[in-house]
């Protein structure tokens, strides 16, 4: 009886060891098999996509990894100067949001002075991720002044609604929606920006679909001597990786009664080109409540400022840093969780900049810290000028003198706002941002000097041009 028991024991141990070894080898085999499969099929077509499918969840069935990232734009995370922070609020009937981003007006009350008399002085919060674009636009307090349907171009997926409204013609639909009241247009759209807005459903190639952008780019290229420019036909893939973002992250205004969305790029993308265009067409966003100056609100000129920076110069596209390549198994996809590169330094920066994360972060924050200081000086100068104009108005100074000071305010304010509203705190083009803010300080202080000494004419260097 002794012997077989020992043999059985040996047998049991042998079986266990053999099983574990087989499991390990088979597991490795299956793992290799999976990786091979992943690299063989970039995606599985489980639904047919065409130009009528708007719902990103349907696209997500074919592209689950990209969709997964896209959904994650709901994340709210702060960076040193941007990002958004979730602030709880009690939902009301008019505004069912239980979370909003922090209020920029509470952070810096000088903004209220700058935008006095304009809707932005009522409600201005830090921007949140793409997922919130439609809700945050629908429920902002700024809606109380009555906004046009134009806003939809960049706050919703409008490709299909425009097409339906225009009988198949994007531009006609765009024009029709522009002149609608916001609430009416709101009923026609269903999603925040979606797959169909940037991708061709058949080939998945990038495409631009925003009529405002197409027109703006056509005007810009016409100014450079290229007629009838169409990015969908001539732009390179790398250019498209910036153009799709440039469709919305830009400066714009609503032209005329029909509230046509226009990108003021006729003279160029630099702040002075844009200001010169506005001066030429005599546009103002509103009349400043304190100083009566005909002022402008800069929106979010990321595309314009980026185009003046070293990254654009080196051929780096928006998507390279904001949607860097990321690996999932054996597949490589661009990260559709669009966000600040500061939250993803490893993939966003280190692909090109071979140095530690801490060093890269410090470099960026150094630039932003300097821009922020200069921005604060410019803001102080502007608030001072507005106070001076207010005093001069009360003292009954001549209208011609006031007009000169208001001109300085318009220019100082637009330049300051161009950097303030831009979402990189100067990083997209550090030296350009510093130049613009320095000019803003100069304009504001010149306005003050003018009020004190009307005979003063500033020295202007002849070295430029």
């Amino acid at each position, binding site marked *: 009886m002794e012997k077989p028991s020992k*043999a059985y024991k040996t*047998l049991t141990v042998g079986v266990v060891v*053999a099983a574990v070894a087989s499991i390990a080898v088979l597991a490795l*085999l299956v793992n290799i098999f999976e*990786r091979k499969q992943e690299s063989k099929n970039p995606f599985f077509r489980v639904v047919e996509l065409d130009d009528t499918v708007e719902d990103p969840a349907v696209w997500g069935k074919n592209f689950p990894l990209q969709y997964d990232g896209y959904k994650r734009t709901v994340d709210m995370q702060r960076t040193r100067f941007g990002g958004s922070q979730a602030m709880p609020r009690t939902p009301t009937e008019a505004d069912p949001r239980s979370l909003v981003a922090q209020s920029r007006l509470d952070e810096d009350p000088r903004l209220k002075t700058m935008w006095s008399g304009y809707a932005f002085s009522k409600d201005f919060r830090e921007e949140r991720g793409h997922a919130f674009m439609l809700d945050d636009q629908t429920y902002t307090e700024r809606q109380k002044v009555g906004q046009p349907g134009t806003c939809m171009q960049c706050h919703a997926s409008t490709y299909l609604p425009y097409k339906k409204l225009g009988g198949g013609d994007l531009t006609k639909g765009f024009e029709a929606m522009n002149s609608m009241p916001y609430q009416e247009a709101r009923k026609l759209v269903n999603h925040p920006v979606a797959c169909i807005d940037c991708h061709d459903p058949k080939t998945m190639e990038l495409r631009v679909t925003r009529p405002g952008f197409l027109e703006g780019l056509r005007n810009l290229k016409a100014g450079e001597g290229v007629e009838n420019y169409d990015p969908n036909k001539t732009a390179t893939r790398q250019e498209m990786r910036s153009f799709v973002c440039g469709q919305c992250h830009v400066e714009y205004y609503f032209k005329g009664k029909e509230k046509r969305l226009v990108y003021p790029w006729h003279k160029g993308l630099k702040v002075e080109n844009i200001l010169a265009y506005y001066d030429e067409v005599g546009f103002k966003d509103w009349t400043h409540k304190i100083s009566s100056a005909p002022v402008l609100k800069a929106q979010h000129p990321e595309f314009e400022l980026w185009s003046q920076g070293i990254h654009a110069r080196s051929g780096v596209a928006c998507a390279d840093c904001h949607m860097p390549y990321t*690996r999932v198994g054996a597949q490589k996809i661009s990260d559709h969780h669009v966000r600040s590169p500061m939250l993803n330094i490893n993939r966003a920066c280190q692909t090109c900049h071979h140095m530690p994360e801490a060093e890269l972060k410090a470099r960026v924050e150094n630039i932003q810290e300097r821009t922020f200081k200069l921005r604060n000086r410019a803001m102080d100068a502007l608030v001072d000028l507005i106070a001076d104009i207010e005093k001069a108005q009360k003292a009954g100074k001549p209208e011609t003198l006031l007009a000169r000071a208001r001109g300085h305010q318009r220019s100082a304010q637009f330049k300051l706002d161009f950097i303030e509203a831009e979402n990189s705190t100067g990083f997209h083009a550090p030296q350009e941002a510093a130049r613009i803010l320095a000019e803003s300080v100069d304009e504001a202080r010149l306005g003050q000097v003018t009020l004190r000494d009307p005979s003063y004419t500033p020295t202007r260097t002849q070295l430029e041009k």
Partner: protein
Amino acid sequence: MKLRPRHLFFAFTAYCGVFLGFCLYTFVYARGTSYLTDDPRACVNCHVMKEQYDGWVKAPHRNVAACNDCHTPHHLIAKYAIKAKNGFWHSYYFTTQTFKEPIEITKTDRKIALDNCRRCHAPIVAAIDGTHNNTKRLDCLRCHQGVGH
């Protein structure tokens, strides 16, 4: 049935055969033999080095040096020792998917690459070292980072 030692022996032999079969099949399926060669395509079997491979195809060294010429030591034993070591860790990290991206060269491997720069470019390196009269070796890759890929 009474269990005899020869039963055990048969069972053991049979299993060894099955197990060997598993191993062989896995080895062949994973293109195991390609790793014993100098073929650069072996380095992109697992796709992680795709960018480096694509870069090398277009870079100036493509006609004179393949992956192993720069990334493994010249000496035969040292070469296979490094291949075994790197092969093991590459497989380990790729299988468990626990590597950091973008991938970075290790200190030892960087030194190997630098030694290989000097091995092929000996005359010019000697001339540079001579004029620099420096005990610390100059790091070729600090300036010529893009020559390989």
